[in-house]
């Protein structure tokens, strides 16, 4: 039961009871003293009593109904700012914490509530900003020592006097440094995206050409794992987007589909037009992802299956980056999975209408 309905009900009930009380008191005030006990008097009294009951009923019911209707309207009027507040608050997420709820400015309780709420949003916004700035600065600060480290390791590798074992060690360090560099790159990209500091180079892009290029590469990448790659459909489709980021999106998804697969498994891709959207689906024969972790697969550094993650190399940011790219193109990305069924990632991007 909503507050509005509850308050209206109580309002009408109080109205009705007070009317009843008024009726009873009026009757007591105006009724004749019952001192002469004749039959005629008793009959008159009884008819007076019925008359008053009748009046009470015919006044009480409309008054009650009026109170009910009026109350409903009154409640609606007084609670309208709350409904507005709810709607506005619902739209605020981590991405638009800088928005504020509209204030009436009349200084009433709800205006005060809005003010307090806006204050809370401002504090939240501030701490989110600090975290973003921290990530951005951290990833930026890491780049200089990383450059020095990998540069010096590379220089050391060129030293002819190194023994085979030393060379092996330096080469392995260089590999790890490169992995670290990729993680830092991914983090910088996401931190910048969070802070809204990336402008995409939008142009009309033939998505089917990118998908075909990607298909050729993924076939090559999947070969050593014995995984079959199929391109089921590839309709001619143009979207308005950033060519490099779309390539990155396709490669991230495909690379993921190959890495998280079973030996002799398969990867199927399909690009088709669906209404005003380009729909790209990539399905792999992966053991189903448990429903409870499904919503978290786009989280940064999230690895659903600890046993699996040991064997899979990657920076743990691929799907987060994919999700950012899709949302930056006003698209949606969904992952569908169930036990014993293949896993599908579906991306929808708005078509280029021009």
């Amino acid at each position, binding site marked *: 039961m909503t507050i509005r309905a509850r308050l209206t009900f109580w309002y009408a009930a109080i109205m009705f009871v007070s009317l009843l009380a008024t009726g009873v008191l009026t009757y007591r005030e105006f009724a004749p003293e019952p001192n002469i006990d004749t039959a005629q008097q008793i009959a008159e009294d009884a008819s007076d009593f019925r008359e008053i009951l009748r009046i009470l009923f015919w006044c009480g019911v409309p008054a009650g109904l009026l109170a009910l209707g009026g109350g409903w309207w009154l409640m609606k009027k007084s609670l309208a700012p709350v409904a507005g507040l709810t709607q506005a608050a619902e739209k605020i997420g981590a991405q638009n914490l800088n928005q504020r709820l509209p204030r009436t400015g009349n200084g009433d309780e709800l205006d005060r509530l809005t003010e307090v709420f806006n204050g809370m949003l401002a504090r939240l916004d501030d701490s989110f900003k600090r975290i973003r700035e921290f990530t951005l600065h951290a990833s*930026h600060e890491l*780049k*200089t020592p*990383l*450059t*020095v*480290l*990998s*540069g*010096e390791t*590379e*220089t050391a*590798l*060129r030293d002819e006097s190194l023994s085979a074992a030393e060379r092996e060690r330096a080469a392995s360090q260089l590999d790890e*440094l*490169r*992995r670290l*560099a*990729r993680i*830092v*790159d991914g983090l*910088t*990209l996401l931190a*910048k995206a969070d802070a809204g*500091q*990336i*402008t995409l*180079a939008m142009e009309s892009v033939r998505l089917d050409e990118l998908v075909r*290029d990607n298909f*050729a*590469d993924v076939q*090559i*990448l999947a*070969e050593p794992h014995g995984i079959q790659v199929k391109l089921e459909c590839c309709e001619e489709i143009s979207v308005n987007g*950033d*060519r*490099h980021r779309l*390539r*990155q999106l396709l*490669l991230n998804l495909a*690379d993921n589909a190959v890495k998280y697969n079973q030996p002799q498994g398969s990867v199927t891709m399909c690009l088709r037009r669906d209404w005003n959207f380009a729909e790209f689906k990539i399905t792999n024969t992966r053991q189903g992802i448990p429903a409870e972790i499904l919503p978290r697969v786009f989280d940064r550094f999230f690895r659903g299956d600890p046993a699996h993650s040991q064997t899979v190399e*990657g*920076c743990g940011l691929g799907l987060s980056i994919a999700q950012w790219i899709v949302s930056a193109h006003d698209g949606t990305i969904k992952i569908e999975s169930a036990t014993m069924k293949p896993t599908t990632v579906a991306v929808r991007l708005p078509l280029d209408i021009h």
Partner: protein
Amino acid sequence: MRILVVEDEKKTASFVRKALQAEGFAVDVCHNGDDALAAARATPFDGIVLDIMLPGRDGLSVLRQLRERKNTTPVLLLSARGEVNERVEGLNAGADDYLPKPFELVELVARVRALTRRGGETKSTVLRVADLALDTLTRQAQRGEKKIELTAREYRLLEFLMRSAGRLCGRMMILEKVWDYDFDPGTNLVDVYIRRLREKIDEEFEPKLLQTVRGAGYMLKETP
């Protein structure tokens, strides 16, 4: 060949200098923008490696100043920020190439080499390295008398390698020019394609043309 390296981080400047010197370049180093402008005015360099983040006058401003003075020395920008916008901004300001930090040294050296050889590209439609020929019009490859079938990607890779024949090509450079990727995909795509290409152009032939340079690059070269 004389190169100016402008980098405020001393250690980075030092190994960049060593790597370029090892390749036979003469190298001057500056640690801030004003010194760089003065040095570029005093000496004609064949190329400038310019860090964007510098104390005082930043790299982009140095670059704009250079171009305003009609100085056309090829410039390779280095940046720790490494974002697409910055790449575009840098190229618009007159840079010839852009490399995000952290970079691989071979990559840097390869790009500096490419910079200093700009303009010397062959105009012929048939590229040749030893007895390997690639017709860029018909997209036909041939080694000796044998015709070689190439996929579209293999063709683009071979064309790029042949156009930079004799020069070291870093992985990122290949990804950028052949795959049109401006990010490190963290896969071994380049190595796999090189292996396939090698099977086609080198396996049954002597001498071997496609060489792996230890560290992180490849080179197509006539004499080993």
